[in-house]
């Protein structure tokens, strides 16, 4: 129940002013991600969309602890992260299964490490349970070479979720799959998330996928200096029903908002400034100047209205 959650629970994953900078060939730091702010509540599914190269996966790998943070910080359940941990499981686009192990052995690899206190039988039951949850009950003993790409990705999902992570990170998990398999796997993950209530971040290019799977969609601006452009709350109920989502009266408006955002980012936003333009904005210079200089303001006195000003009182009333 939301009411019984502490403020820390409500702000389960906190990404504050996150920066990732890489040196360019001249040794200058280029900020790929610059000031990314996002909060995920417990059990929430948030998609991050944006153009290729904008830094979506960079944010995810920093949250996973696999990529060093250049600035800002990330906290999960109130604790700042310091490197990878079993509390955050990642599913990448390619499942990267160990080819000499069966699907069950691939899943057991992580389960054996995380559930060290359990018996061998218990650990096996956990691995089998999650393989069954992704629809692979009859493929426990298949090797990766004997499975399709979709089946391999199912093993990858089972491997991640079997660890009972606090946070599930999906990095374009369906990017290499055909559309039917993709829809099937979307439903597989949604069923698991509905049951397990794992806080989840999904990186995707696919607007429809983002809308169907998430509670919120975080739109990233194009890089460099990418950050959150806008967050869209989605009004669809859980468990999700694809037909109900598509028929929702707001579906096309929300989709349009996402698509137009991506189009704007693709076009680079503002047109080149006309020197004769009737609008301009030097605000940033002023804000920087004010930040750099402490200015003593004089004490103000409230001036009485002049006679001419008083004449206006009541005018037009």
């Amino acid at each position, binding site marked *: 129940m939301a009411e019984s959650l502490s403020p820390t629970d409500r702000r389960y994953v906190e990404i504050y002013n996150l920066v990732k900078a890489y040196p360019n060939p001249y040794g200058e730091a280029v900020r790929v991600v610059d000031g990314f*702010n996002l909060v995920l509540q417990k059990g929430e599914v948030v998609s991050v969309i944006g153009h290729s190269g904008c830094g979506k996966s960079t944010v995810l790998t920093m949250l996973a602890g696999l990529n060093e943070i250049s600035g800002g910080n990330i906290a999960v359940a109130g604790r700042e992260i310091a490197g990878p941990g079993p509390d955050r499981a990642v599913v990448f686009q390619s499942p990267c299964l160990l080819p000499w192990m069966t699907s069950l052995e691939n899943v057991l690899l992580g389960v054996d490490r995380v559930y060290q206190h359990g018996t061998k039988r218990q650990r096996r039951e956990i691995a089998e349970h999650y393989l069954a949850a992704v629809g692979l009950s009859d493929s426990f003993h298949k090797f990766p070479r004997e499975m399709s790409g979709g089946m391999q990705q199912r093993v990858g999902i089972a491997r991640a979720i079997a660890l009972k992570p606090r946070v599930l990170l999906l990095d374009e998990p369906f990017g290499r799959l055909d559309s039917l398999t993709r829809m099937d796997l979307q439903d597989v993950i949604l069923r698991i998330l509905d049951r397990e209530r794992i806080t989840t971040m999904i990186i995707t290019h696919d607007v429809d996928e983002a809308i169907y799977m998430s509670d919120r969609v975080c739109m990233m601006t194009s890089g460099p200096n990418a950050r959150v452009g806008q967050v869209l709350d989605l009004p669809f109920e859980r468990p999700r029903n694809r037909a109900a989502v598509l028929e929702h009266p707001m579906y096309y408006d929300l989709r349009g908002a996402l698509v*137009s955002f991506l189009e*704007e980012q693709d076009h680079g936003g503002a047109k080149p400034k006309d020197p004769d333009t009737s609008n301009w904005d030097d605000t940033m210079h002023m804000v920087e100047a004010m930040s750099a200089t402490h200015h003593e303001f004089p004490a103000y006195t409230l001036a009485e209205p002049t006679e001419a000003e008083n004449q206006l009182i009541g005018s037009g009333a």
Partner: protein
Amino acid sequence: MPLAVAGMEVAGRSLVRSIAVYRRDESGQRLVAHCCGEGIFHLGEGAVGRAGAEGTPTIEREGDIATVAVPSMQGEVCRGVTTFRCDTGGDFRGACEVWRRNERGELGLAENLYAGLDRLEQITKYVKFPRRAGLPGRVWDDRFPRVLGALQDSKHFIRVAAARTEQLTSAVGIPFMGRPPELDAVLLLLNTKQTPIAKAMEVWARDLTTNQLRIVSADYGPYTALASVSRRLSLRHGEGLAGRVFRDSAPYATHDLLGKEFPRGDCFAEYGFEQGVGLPVFIGADLVASVNLYL
């Protein structure tokens, strides 16, 4: 008790019917009509008094008329309240949005006035802006007001699809601080081509090198001659609308732009601008800017 008393009538096609400025009197407990408007409001009384007591912008409705009450808070002290009485019926189009921080620390829509902008209204309910995101998020991050022109092409205005559909032209975002450095709210005034809230909008601030006031952010729409005459303009305390706002640390309104806005008065008159209102923007006790709206 009416929401607020009609003040300076706005001529021409504007979402705003009238503007009124109230300033704190010597008792500190009442807001008194200043250069336009009528009456006296105790803090907490009516839309004017409530905005002054709560220190945050409020929007109240009475039929097709909505009153946007904008307080000017110098720290805990209300220096004045400016009201905009807006017509939301008929073919009037425009929007006022009050964005406040939610439990995630993002800005969500808290209060709104939409006139004839159904698509923008529908989509905005679902939109949230983290710090630095969109116009509200940038105003929050800067703790400084900002005018955005050409909304239909601006990369800084994220709801660009709605801006195109609704023919939004320009917007101004104004921060309202709670206890510094915490932001309480961002007020967005969104202009349409048909019935703008203001025909021109400016943000004035003190140039720290010359100690004079300069425009740092502005939009004049089709009134390009105003842009060129304004760009290099600087004012001293007490000069023009912005100078009077800085002199008094309080909002100021006039329908004598010709007399008050030297050397731009002729230009304002030529374009048919009749009223101007200046809203002081405080960060804590510091007056950092004046947002000037010309109607």
